[in-house]
């Protein structure tokens, strides 16, 4: 690259240091060759800015949005899944499993020595009052919803993966 031309373009683009800028300003003022080249480049730069952008068809935005709608990609996946829902579900299962584990370990007969006996039947009379038909139906309903949600999630991912 020609040093003078490179310096002048840097000067015009504003990509030179303050010291270089000062030095080039002096050169332009006192050196006829620099001045002539600078004016030529300045004119070129001005003309390049006249460049016009092309316009797409009038229906361009409509076509893009229609394609997006047609692909059922109505929202980016991350926007659909609220992290609080995932955390809530995780917390529900962790608490349930932990409670069950504590309850079972609490009912183990530790005094039995090396042959630890797990009780054949847990004394769960005090929680039986909570296990009613409505609760079981509710639990099953929750499971079905969760299953459908996971299936929908899985199918969406597959759909996205298939797209080029």
């Amino acid at each position: 690259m020609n040093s003078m031309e490179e310096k002048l373009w840097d000067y015009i683009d504003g990509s030179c240091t303050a010291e270089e800028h000062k030095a080039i300003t002096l050169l332009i003022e006192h050196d006829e060759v620099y001045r002539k080249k600078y004016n030529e480049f300045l004119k070129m730069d001005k003309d390049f800015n006249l460049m016009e952008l092309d316009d797409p068809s009038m229906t361009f935005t409509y076509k893009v949005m229609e394609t997006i709608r047609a692909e059922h990609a109505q929202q980016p996946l991350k926007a659909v899944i609220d992290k609080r829902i995932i955390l809530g579900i995780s917390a529900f299962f962790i608490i349930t499993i932990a409670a069950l584990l504590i309850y079972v370990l609490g009912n183990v007969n530790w005094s039995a020595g090396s042959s630890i006996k797990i009780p054949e039947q847990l004394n769960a009379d005090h929680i039986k009052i909570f296990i009613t038909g409505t609760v079981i139906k509710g639990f099953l309903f929750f499971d079905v919803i969760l299953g459908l949600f996971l299936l929908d999630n899985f199918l969406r991912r597959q759909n996205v993966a298939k797209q080029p």
Partner: protein
Amino acid sequence: MQSKLTDIELIQQVLAGNQSAYADLVKRHQRFVFSLAMRFSKSREDAEEIAQDCFIKAYRSLASFQQQSKFSTWLYSIVYTTAMTFLRKKRVDTTSIDNDEAFIQIESKPGSYDENNIENKSRSYYLNQAIDQLLPDDATIITMFYKGEQSLDEIAQVLGIEANTVKVKLFRARQRLKDKLERNLKHEVKELI
């Protein structure tokens, strides 16, 4: 009428589920994206296909946009990758900067350069004509620098090269553009440059 919201605000709305906000983003950037696509394809139909593809890809990946750069820089990198893939598929002739085929092709387009109506043509017309004759890389750098409001660093990010390399490429692209203008306009170039 276009939205007065910033790109980032519009993106946040899209991510929150407001799909129509994306239409505003498309409207805002479509001219530049389409023009960049035109630098590669030289055909309006293909350029429109590339541009559409870019906006759909950008939509799908919007959640992964980290906002560490401008949305336009991120979008243009998608355009560049998509257009390069298009070029590879279509095997568009990009062999030599001195190849005059493109020049002949553009000259033969209806309504192009004609000595009789030269006075009626604007400066920008001849400039765009010369840009059309450049290699896609040169035309892309020139377009991004002058019309895309992209710095050398941002162009480097889009093209996946060093900023210094962009600087050298921009310098050469300007020189080639000047040569093309000189060739096209012959006597008229003195008036233009």
